[in-house]
């Protein structure tokens, strides 16, 4: 039976049902790990460690979860805080080997993708990190601007501005593809 997030959280908090939490982990692991890989500049091992830590932290804090926001927003906020704090602590240390490995793997995958995907990645690479995150959260994950602002700990106006600027840039960079789709 596929229970919604609220029911699963109730089971975890009230009955100590860890299987319910396992269901939540399975539900969000792919999305969260993928998002964190982008945030960790392609370091997959670090992203997975951070995602794991975020799920554990969320479990411990679950009794305090009031349900004001969606569980996914709350989980992303925890994960983003962890990554940002890790980045602050370990600013000069980048696991270059892991990054190179991931990039090599990506380039093999990219060569098999369609031109659109390649150009989209390249266009995303033209954005600033904050713009990329804002677009990822709002347009890929479907978070509202308010939710993205709360995850990124930025003022709402700043997030809106990041999204608008990124959208405009992407729109210009990908115009040819759009025209191709529209014209069939």
């Amino acid at each position, binding site marked *: 039976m596929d229970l919604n997030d609220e029911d699963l959280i109730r089971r975890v908090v009230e009955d100590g049902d860890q299987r319910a939490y396992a269901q939540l982990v399975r539900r969000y*692991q792919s999305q969260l790990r993928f998002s964190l890989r982008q945030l960790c500049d392609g370091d997959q091992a670090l992203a997975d460690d951070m995602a794991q830590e975020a799920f554990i932290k969320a479990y*411990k804090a679950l009794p305090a979860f009031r349900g004001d926001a969606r569980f996914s927003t709350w989980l992303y906020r925890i994960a983003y805080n962890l990554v940002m704090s890790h980045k602050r602590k370990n600013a000069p240390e980048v696991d270059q080997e892991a990054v190179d490995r991931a990039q090599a793997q990506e380039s093999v995958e990219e060569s098999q993708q369609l031109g659109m995907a390649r150009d989209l990645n390249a266009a995303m690479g033209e954005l600033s990190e904050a713009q990329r995150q804002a677009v990822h959260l709002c347009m890929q994950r479907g978070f509202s601007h308010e939710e993205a602002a709360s995850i990124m700990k930025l003022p709402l106006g700043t997030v809106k501005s990041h999204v608008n600027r990124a959208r405009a840039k992407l729109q210009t*960079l990908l115009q040819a593809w759009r025209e191709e789709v529209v014209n069939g």
Partner: protein
Amino acid sequence: MDKFEQWQGGANTLNDSTLQGKDPDFDAWLGQQLQFNEPYLDNDGFCERVMAQLPAPSRRAERRATRVQYAAVLAASAIVAWQFPFGEVLSEAVQQSISLYSLVGVGILSSLAAMTGGILAARR
């Protein structure tokens, strides 16, 4: 990357209307493309690693769950007992000259079996 390079030069000259981003079609299309390009990451033992590191659930929560299970089984037993035609069974037993003691014994044993089954099922 032909199309990307072709349009890259234009990215630096954004006008006000593009900046305002009033093209819902583009938003929908971009959202689709971003999602289409996202791979699904297999669990690959990730969930199990998380679960292995979780602290044990609190005793209070466990006790509460057990109490709820016992209450459910008791309520179910009470409903069965309420609906069970004890009078008819007794009179039938007297007519068939079955020993009252063996009848009570069978009743108690069946109730115990039903309750144990109920508890085990609820725990599973």
